[in-house]
């Protein structure tokens, strides 16, 4: 499992390609994603692209791995993610990120990243989020919590810090874009509803 996760950066390339191509055909999607993944092992200046990707983006969190795996698979059968489930998960991730990143990047005398080394409180928070997700029938969120907690227990990443299993900057950028897009669509939808009512 740990060895497989060494190559998780492949998902950054393979998942979007698969998800876009699968609209045309499953075979095309599989061939495109596999070909692109194969290219990542070609050395350029003595270092393969997969090492270069890992060097730049470091290891992906299990939340990112989970979402980049589920997202293209759901598109195979044209199943869209439950919007509320996904929005809730993004909101939770963003809230955690706001707690973590400013202090971890140097703001103030305390580094919130240290919380992830003695993670009793953080573990309890994550487990509580999982229970809440189950209650709300947000299956993707609940499954993500299970994967993160299980992965952390097995220490499948080269980190002893729970934060690294929960979050990474790519995920945070993605959630910001997703939530902004979601808010924009909500606004348009409200505007349309208002227009319909007035007519």
């Amino acid at each position, binding site marked *: 499992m740990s060895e497989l996760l060494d190559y998780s950066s492949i998902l950054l390339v393979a998942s979007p390609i698969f998800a876009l191509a699968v609209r045309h055909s499953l075979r095309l999607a599989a061939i495109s994603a596999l070909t692109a993944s194969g290219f990542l092992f070609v050395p350029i200046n*003595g270092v393969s692209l997969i*090492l270069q990707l890992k060097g730049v983006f470091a290891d992906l969190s299990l939340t990112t791995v989970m979402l980049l795996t589920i997202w293209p698979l759901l598109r195979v059968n044209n199943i869209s993610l439950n919007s509320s489930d996904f929005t809730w998960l993004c909101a939770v991730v963003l809230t955690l990120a706001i707690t973590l990143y400013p202090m971890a990047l*140097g703001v103030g005398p305390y*580094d919130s990243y240290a919380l992830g080394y003695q993670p009793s409180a953080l573990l309890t928070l994550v487990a509580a989020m999982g229970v809440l997700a189950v209650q709300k029938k947000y299956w993707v969120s609940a499954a993500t919590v299970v994967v993160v907690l299980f992965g952390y227990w097995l220490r499948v990443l080269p*980190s002893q810090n729970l934060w*690294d299993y929960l979050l990474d900057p790519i995920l945070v950028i993605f959630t910001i874009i997703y939530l902004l897009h979601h808010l924009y669509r909500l606004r348009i939808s409200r505007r349309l509803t208002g227009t319909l009512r007035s007519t």
Partner: protein
Amino acid sequence: MLKISLLLAIAAIYGLNLLDVLVVPADTISPYQPRSRTPVAESTQALFHEQFVNRAEVVPRVHAPTAIINANGELHSYWYGGASEGAEDVAIYGARFDPQANAWTDQHKLVSPVSASVQTGYWVRKIGNPVAFAHPDGRIWLFYVNVTIGGWALSAINLATSSDGGRTFSGHKRLVTSPFFNRSTLVKTPAIEFADGSIGLPVHHQMLAKHGELLKLNSQGDVVDKRRIPSESSALQPALVSLPDGTLLAFMRSDAGKLLRSSSANQGATWSQAVSIDVPNPDSAVAVVSTSTGLLLAFNNDPKNRDVLNLAHSIDRGNSWQEFYVLEYLPNLHEHDHSNEFSYPWFVKDPNGFYHLFYTWQRTNIKHIRFNETWLEEQLRGDV
């Protein structure tokens, strides 16, 4: 059914994780206890010797020496060198001191960006400061700064280990120290050993602000804790030293013109606010080591320039320092001339009572100064 299964799974894994965390409490850093040393065979005659470590014809520019005494008593030094600081041809070099010949020998390249990339599985574009540590189990650990994109502020730390006393290194891995693409943690100053076998590695962070920090590593070299040293101004490269009562002191370089001092009464778990002391600092690293009568400091005795390197002594826990010896002084001719640089000192004490001081000499050489307690006492008394 799915609901119950998921709830059970969450409860079970949460319980297992919590058990792990509670059974192995990691929230306190154990007291620092220096390793016992072989009894010192102290010479009564004052001894002072200086020489260059590197062969200058191998690489034009060198910097940031580090050194260890291995389990066999051999002295090894490591530094980085290449066309210039940050150039992509920069590699880490090492050499061994031959006491019979009283000379440095066996200089060889140890780590290059390509070898670091292949060994760690992460692309490394350039490498920098090495920090060597003689682990109590006999292995030599070599930490080194590496960069993939951007400048030094976006560095990460790699760790390689040696099982042959520091001649060759393998098993390179990247330490995970930051949630932001694992960036902005740098190393320069010596690691310390805690009583529980864990290692304290002083590092610094320099992204949105500059902070000194202390990492705690387990015997596998995994980071298991991280503490920040609060400071009144930007602080880098904490040099740690332990006092007989167990108090840890950190001395940090600063861009405010003065050296910063912080202390920890609970062995690194929490630190006092670092405040400036009356020692000039041109934003350059210092080295500190304990002596029989107090503390010894190697530092640039100027708030702006690294063209002077001095020794100072303290008998009041590093609050005040008495400068007593000028190691190097060759003034630069004008403000932007930095060619005369004597910087990045590193102390090692050997079991025979010798102090070994290494530093960058004009960026072309690594200099090694060796002296004993008798020489030090004579200098402190002014018997020269």
